[in-house]
């Protein structure tokens, strides 16, 4: 429950109409740059940060994050180094940190060992896009035991019945993918999106809703305010760091809401 409580606590503050979750790929372009980027994100009020542990087969990601995964691995980023870095981040900042990665990283580490380690570090949630609730029985049990929220994903293709089914395994919040496709392409917000969000709200059985995929501007965040509880900025900051360096992240985040 720790993640949902932190989110509720933040949302209860009168100046917070919508929370921000940002994303980084650990080791891309380096852990040192990750450190600077995270400091700027935190200093500018980001409430949640998902740290992606790179994987060689990032099936659900688009070209920018695929390349970031690949380059992080090529630079020698290990799971052990990611865990060590995550521990430092959780110790240094009060922001809620989550791990995003693919199931094989946990599987190979040992599912329970990974939960134990993440709990010890202070990680509050896991986003594992290739693990549906039908698979990985131990994962769902251990999420409860270690109080690390498994974040489930709703898609525009999800029926309301499926959403309700997913909500049974979900904790913390629901990650609503704004459109079909992979990460990093523009999303068009239209009437279909609004009815999708209404469906998500009905299916989420009270959990907060985050919206991600293609969210990159103040206008996007303004549009989502009132419809979602959390706006997710992913590929946009990676592109920004690539083009303008880590120091551009602070002003960008500050300008989002």
């Amino acid at each position: 429950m720790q993640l949902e409580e932190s989110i509720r606590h933040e949302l209860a503050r009168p100046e917070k109409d919508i929370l921000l979750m940002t994303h980084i790929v650990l080791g891309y372009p380096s852990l040192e740059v990750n450190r600077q980027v995270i400091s700027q994100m935190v200093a500018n009020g980001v409430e949640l940060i998902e740290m992606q542990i790179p994987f060689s087969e990032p099936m659900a990601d688009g070209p920018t994050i695929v390349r970031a995964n690949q380059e992080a691995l090529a630079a020698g980023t290990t799971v052990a180094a990611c865990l060590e870095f995550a521990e430092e981040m959780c110790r240094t900042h009060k922001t809620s940190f989550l791990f995003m990665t693919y199931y094989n990283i946990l599987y190979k580490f040992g599912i329970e060992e990974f939960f134990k380690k993440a709990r010890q570090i202070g990680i509050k949630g896991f986003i594992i896009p290739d693990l549906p609730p039908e698979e990985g029985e131990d994962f769902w049990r251990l999420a409860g035991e270690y109080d690390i929220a498994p974040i489930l994903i709703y898609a525009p293709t999800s029926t309301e019945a499926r959403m309700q089914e997913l909500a049974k395994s979900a904790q913390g919040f629901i990650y609503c993918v704004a459109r079909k496709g992979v990460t990093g392409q523009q999303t068009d917000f239209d009437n279909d999106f609004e009815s999708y969000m209404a469906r998500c709200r009905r299916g989420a059985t009270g959990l907060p809703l985050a919206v991600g995929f293609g969210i990159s501007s103040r206008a996007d965040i303004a549009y989502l305010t009132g419809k979602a509880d959390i706006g997710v900025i992913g590929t946009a900051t990676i592109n920004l760091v690539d083009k303008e360096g880590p120091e551009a992240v602070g002003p960008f985040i500050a300008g989002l809401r």
Partner: protein
Amino acid sequence: MQKTGYYGQWGGAYIPEILFETFQELNAAFAAAKADPAFWQEYVGLMATYSCRPTPLTHAANLSEHFGGAQIYIKREDLNHTGAHKANNVMGQGLLVKRMGKKRVIAETGAGQHGVATATMAAKFGLECTIYMGEEDVMRQRPNVFWMEKLGATVVPVTSGSKTLKDAINEAFRDWVTRMDDTHYVMGTVCGPHPFPEMVAWFQSIIGQEAHEQINKQFGALPARVYACVGGGSNAMGIFQGFLEHPEVELIGVEAGGHGVDTGQHAARLASKDASAGVAQGYHTMFLQNNDGQMMDTHSVAAGLDYIGVSPILADLWEQGRVRFAAATDQEVMAALELTMKREGIIPALESSHAFVQAYKEAGTLRPDQAIIVNMSGRGDKDIFTVAHAFDDPSWKEFIRKKGAEYAA
């Protein structure tokens, strides 16, 4: 809880949520087709009139004599339309696509045989077609790229990761999550999330059904051993299914030994000590991966075997001890290819030549009143550049130089 799509501990469906409904639809369509005898009849009829089924079982008399052991029989999947067993699966999935009413197909391809087969099926059934192929494979299987494009398909070279088959699969999934409404992903092998292993194995079982009947008729008994190369494992599953129920028939899967199973440069999952259990590309199997769970670069002279994972069905049969696994090195493959050409006038694909290597190693240890079957999954025409290069053929090089000069002019 009995989970679907598992073979022992292997298999499953580790799919992103966005594809949940698509898989529901696919599972329902496949279950309905499998339960409908008319569907299988339509499939067999199509393969008899459009492809070349039943493909012959050839007695390799010269090679049998050469090794002085078992009678060697070759199941001729090379004589299928498009030159490999891949057509079996593709035409079957094509009929399923028609039932589902989808307008577009996508596929991954390694050697290009699955891509050519899919492009062919799309042309015949009037479907739009995009093929994902690792950039490295585009280079080494250029003739197939040419034919795919001429058949009307768009070929997308994949530049991420190791630029081979696994990366083409990732890219095909990325396409599918974007266009699942009108698109079917024609998975080329008995891997990936359920129902693909079961579906592809079902369509490929036609090989084993025929081979079983043919060996009984031609040789008068079941074979002692059946050999098949294993990349993902579809041709192996195809022929093995004809003999699984007969424990006296030993089944041997031959993986890519590359530069040798001790060199780290190979694609032997079950025949080396380098693989471990993992979950990737939508399923649980034995993968060539490091201790962090990152997939390793694999190597094989045969693009179609150059893959990190193996069919969950074969992983289970391996664990049960029902299928034995061996590896053939690039060098052994070239020797077996040459011998098969010279002695029998048959040109196996580099992939298929792996099966021949192991059969040749063992034929002499069996008696002449015993038979073995080698599944020749495809023909070698596509490999002309790779094979000519490996033989360092002077007249071929001269030809390429002249052609190069002609185009440069």
